[in-house]
């Protein structure tokens, strides 16, 4: 899976959706009148990623997200249960899980496979697994692959979910995309591994067996604790740790930001990104930038 372009659209949470419309208008004159914040956020990152690249008509869209259209879902539930009104149709339509990926596909006039994908804390990584098998089976040649989440956490929600201090993190929202192709000509780099493990030990064993052609950068998901980071760091010689969560900010699809941020920041290097979910399942994504 070869990476032909990347985007890193991140911002502090903004309620005024005209901000996102302005961002999108930097790349296209298309109007997205009925789109909500999540849809516009998705479009902003996808269009930034596709900018200057020819998008083939059969390009697939894989939109990975932890929370999806959270803002409008809350609005619709409020309309139904608190106000006891019919939900407004625009709000209701935008709560459909694949609305954002549909908008992305429609805006590029592409008709490839279109998926919205979520898997607790590992949505981006699991989505890449799926893309790998779809590309392996030959059903997808090109894909716009994104990690998108609104910045939706309150202090209490964040601390209850992650058992970490809210004030240690800068909350953002983000839409980070990769243009991934089976074809390597013109690629900026490639995804060299997407691996899944049931616990820490086999993850460590896998990492120790790897040999990297270029200087290695390590990065970690939010749930990897400091002790585990140290253990991974000792297991494999590496040039640096890329703490994208502290340098860019945190949103629930931050892994996407880590991969795009690596492409943005490093030259001729390999990235190994290690993440885990609440059940203790580990996933590793390895990327090489040429």
């Amino acid at each position, binding site marked *: 899976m070869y990476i032909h372009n990347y985007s890193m659209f991140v911002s502090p949470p903004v309620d005024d959706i005209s901000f996102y419309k302005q961002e999108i208008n930097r790349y296209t004159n298309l*109007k997205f*009148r*009925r789109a909500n914040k999540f849809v516009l956020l998705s479009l902003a990152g996808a269009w930034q990623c596709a900018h200057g690249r020819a998008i083939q008509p059969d390009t697939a869209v894989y939109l990975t997200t932890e929370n999806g259209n959270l803002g409008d879902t809350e609005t619709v539930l409020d309309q139904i249960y608190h106000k006891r*009104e*019919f*939900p*407004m*149709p*625009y709000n209701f*339509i935008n709560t459909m899980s694949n609305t954002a990926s549909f908008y992305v596909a429609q805006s590029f006039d592409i008709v490839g496979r279109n998926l919205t994908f979520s898997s607790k804390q590992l949505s981006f990584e699991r989505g890449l697994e799926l893309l790998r098998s779809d590309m392996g089976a030959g059903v997808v040649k090109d894909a716009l692959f994104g990690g998108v989440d609104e910045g939706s956490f309150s202090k209490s929600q964040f601390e209850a979910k992650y058992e970490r201090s809210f004030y240690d993190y800068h909350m953002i929202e983000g839409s980070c995309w990769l243009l991934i192709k089976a074809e390597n000509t013109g690629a900026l780099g490639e995804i060299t591994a997407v691996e899944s493990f049931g616990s820490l030990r086999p993850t460590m064993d896998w990492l120790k067996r790897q040999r990297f052609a270029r200087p290695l950068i390590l990065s970690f998901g939010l749930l990897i604790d400091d002790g585990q980071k140290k253990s991974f760091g000792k297991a494999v010689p590496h040039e640096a740790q890329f703490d994208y969560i502290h340098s860019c900010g945190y949103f629930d699809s931050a892994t996407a930001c880590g991969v795009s941020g690596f492409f943005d920041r490093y030259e001729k290097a390999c990235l190994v990104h290690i993440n885990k979910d609440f059940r203790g399942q580990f996933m590793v994504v390895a990327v090489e930038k040429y």
Partner: protein
Amino acid sequence: MKGSLDQKLKNEIKALIIESCELDIELSQIDDDCPLFSPKSDLGLDSIDALQISIAIQNTYGIAIRDSKQMRRVVKSVNTFADFLQPE
């Protein structure tokens, strides 16, 4: 006074259409007699917008339009809309 003769009401309706359908236009750009949902209309509204407007009517004026044929007649133009809300 019939709604179609009440400019204040008609401006209120235009504002409701613009706000509920998230249109980026001024009140003056909606003609009182212009068909709102015609392919010839510059507004570019469709059936989802009609549904959006019908719920906005219900929330704003407390009037539920359950019959789709009636809905089509009511939202044909700003004037028909105004006459429905204010027949006399």
